[in-house]
């Protein structure tokens, strides 16, 4: 199932009009943590609402499909959202638009998969983009992130920044990362970027100066040849800039992950791409070979992009071999074990974010379900013909489909 991360509040009151948006943090009614101006008591029943008022909460966030009875004496801020947002809990952070009452869940404290969308603008236009770019002025998003950072639990283990191209406004974004260094020094910060901005030495130097102890740039490289990569990302000259960016980051000792999304343009050459990365870029910190998320542009370009993973399993296994042999840390993302050659199982991770991760009925009979990536629930999921429960009896049979 897919967790709804966006929605519209059924009711709101008490927000001032000189500001279009607010960042809201939810707190348990009985929370004794120091109260921040952005904190709202989280109430699911009328009883909890009453307790929140008794506890002098000036702001209340209600998750309920029923009507809310508030004493007329309450003059604080109020937001009410439908029950389908019941997953919200203590420490979660939301962005709330006053006039439209639209909100987005920005941070879930209990999730290992928190990511901030930084912008929808991008200088690539990837054929399979799951988050199709929009050429709009959305700089307010960065302001909202800045406002959110002080509200995030410093014990958070990992945080991802995604886009769009996260470095579209590099100066402002690097300022956000610098704040992460100060507020979230023990959090692993991952930034998804096409890396082209790092062809500019000033930007790489600024990135280096952030000095966050655990910062990684995750950069896609789709081929060993310029025009193949440029076609996939629909941007002439992108390969040259991305490669330069990777070299400049590593030259300054920065951590880099290379990401290869596998589809009909990249998967048939994945062995060669893997061999080439192993030979030319063995100094990168991680390589992720990633199954396609069939959403966004990937749906529009389905005829061009769809390739059943069982048809590229051999090449994928060889790519993993080449990379491992060169000492490169390599993982396979987003592909269930049943469609992968057994030799890459140990590299296959449960990489799909919890809010869009699901399984099919067949998985209930599978011995490997607990350590399997499962599937994306977003967009229009396409299933490999290799999807089949792995059981102790089946494991002894010859490898399926091939």
């Amino acid at each position, binding site marked *: 199932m897919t967790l709804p991360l966006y929605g519209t509040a059924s009711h709101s009151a008490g927000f001032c009009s000189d500001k279009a948006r607010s960042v809201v943090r939810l707190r348990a009614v009985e929370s004794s943590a120091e109260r921040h101006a952005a904190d709202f008591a989280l109430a699911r029943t009328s009883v909890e609402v009453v307790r929140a008022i008794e506890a002098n909460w000036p702001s209340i966030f209600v998750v309920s499909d029923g009507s809310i009875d508030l004493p007329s004496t309450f003059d604080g801020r109020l937001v009410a959202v439908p029950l389908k947002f019941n997953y919200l809990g203590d420490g979660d952070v939301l962005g709330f638009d006053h006039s439209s009452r639209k909100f987005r869940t920005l941070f879930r404290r209990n999730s290992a998969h928190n990511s901030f969308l930084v912008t929808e603008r991008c200088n690539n*236009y990837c*054929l399979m983009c799951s988050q*199709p770019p929009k050429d709009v002025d959305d700089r307010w998003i960065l302001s909202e992130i800045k406002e959110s950072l002080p509200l995030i639990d410093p014990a958070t283990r990992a945080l991802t920044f995604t886009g769009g191209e996260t470095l579209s406004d590099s100066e402002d974004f690097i300022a956000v990362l610098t704040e992460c260094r100060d507020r979230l020094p023990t959090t692993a910060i991952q930034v998804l970027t096409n890396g082209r901005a790092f*062809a500019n030495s000033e930007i790489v130097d600024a990135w280096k100066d952030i000095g966050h102890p655990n910062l990684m740039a995750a950069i896609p490289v789709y081929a*060993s*040849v*310029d*025009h*193949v990569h*440029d*076609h996939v990302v*629909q941007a*002439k*000259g992108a*390969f*040259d*800039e*991305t*490669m*330069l960016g990777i*070299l400049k980051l*590593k*030259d300054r000792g920065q951590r880099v992950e290379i990401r290869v999304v596998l589809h009909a343009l990249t998967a048939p050459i994945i062995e*060669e791409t893997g061999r*080439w990365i192993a*030979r*030319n870029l*063995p100094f990168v910190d991680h390589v992720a070979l990633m199954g396609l998320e069939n959403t966004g*542009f990937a749906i*529009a*370009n389905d005829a061009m992009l769809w390739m059943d993973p069982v048809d590229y399993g051999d090449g994928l296994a060889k790519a993993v071999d080449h990379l491992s*042999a*060169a*000492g490169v840390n390599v993982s396979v993302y987003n592909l269930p074990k049943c469609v992968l050659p057994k030799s890459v199982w140990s590299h296959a991770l449960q990489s799909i974010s919890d809010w869009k991760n699901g399984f099919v009925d067949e998985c209930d009979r599978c011995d490997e379900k607990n350590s399997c990536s499962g599937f994306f629930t977003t967009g229009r999921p396409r299933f490999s013909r290799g999807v089949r429960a792995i059981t102790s009896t089946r494991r002894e049979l010859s490898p399926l489909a091939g």
Partner: protein
Amino acid sequence: MARFLAPEAFSAATEDLSLLPFNLERTGTNQYLVSNMVGDFIRLTEDELNRLVDLRIRPGDGLYEKAYAAHLVTGTNQKAQRQLLAARLRSRMSFLQQVTPLHIFVVTLRCEHSCPYCQVSRQSTDRSRFDMSEETAIRALDIAFASPAARIKIEFQGGEPLLNFPLIRTIVADAKARSGKKVDLVIASNLALLDDVVLEFCKANNILLSTSLDGPADLHNKNRPRPGGNSHELAVAGIRRGREILGPDRVGALMTTTEASLERVDDIIDEYLQLGLDGIFLRPLSPFGFAIKTKQFAKYDAQKWLAFYERGLRRVLEINRQGTPFREFYAALLLTRMLSDRPIGYVDLRSPAGAGLGALVYNYDGSVFASDEGRMLAETGDDAFRLGHVDHDSYNSLILSDKLIGAISSSLTQCAPECSTCVYESHCGADPVYHHATQDDALGIKPLSAFCARQKGIMGLLLDILEKSPEDAAILRRWAAS
């Protein structure tokens, strides 16, 4: 939604192409082996090579993709292809950052063995004349500690260094008392004189032992005579005892190939295997010292040696296929250069040469040489690589001496005839001492050089196995990985 563009739309950026540097060699009718600037190999047909050189290639024709991925071409306005080559070349050459990491102390030239192939021309008598003095040793340490490397290795050589064990003790104590460098210690010994006192000392000071083992008893004892005819027995006992006391990875053994070895490579390898050693270094005889005087060196040529090497390598691979990890160390060094960009400063596989920049040798009499082979030459009257003396010279005066600069700068493979255009150049090395010894010329005429013939022969063999034998190739790749 904007329209997506077809693949052809992205070819235009690469219409203006430039060639990047590469070397090539004809390997058969219509077949060429091509290597890029950092030694990645690809095979091209004659037609492909001609199209490449004329830049008659276009995205989508298959050759463009092959050539681009191999860094043979770049878009003229692109930067990444060149920057990537630069980064990789810098990594490959970064062994140069560790200047003079090896310091060899010849603590005595005396030896109780009388090997006819002895490359250092050992002496049997006269302790006062052929032992290094304490004063000489301390001055040599002053020089070693003046070298820029943060970590140095001090290797005790002979003769048989254990014949002057008290001086080894003195040098180790003195080196440990000095600050500023991490020091690794090695004793190169035939182990005939190894006893518990020496072993305890090695253990206490974390000293590695390196010894000679030429093969089974009959072969070893024929190559390495000593009173009692028990060289093999003592070496094997020493290796066992040393591994037991110091640890299995703290004793290494090296073999030297003589004419008598040529038909015995399987026996030699089995000897190493039975001793539980994790590999063997198949080494040819060097043209120095007694090896020349006794005409040992002249007894086999490069082709015979290569045949020996190939039989040996294939036997080693067979052992691996049967499940026992066991390496041929020279192949492992070459493969590391061929399959990775890790800097390998191994003396035969580097240019600028390792003479002086890789090692200095302090002879028993205080003379300082640019390499172990350099002092071997001096014992037979050739002072070409004698850089100076510990009494009159400093580290700087030795390393900046005209002799050393001349030998290194005149032997660079990057600009030497035959070498600079050789398809194997990236992985090979300059060996000015060898070429001086055999051709009286630090540069040397490479088609006449057995060094060149061996290097090309072994690299050709390794490439052949990598391309044609997947199972063996997987074993070879593992050797390069660590």
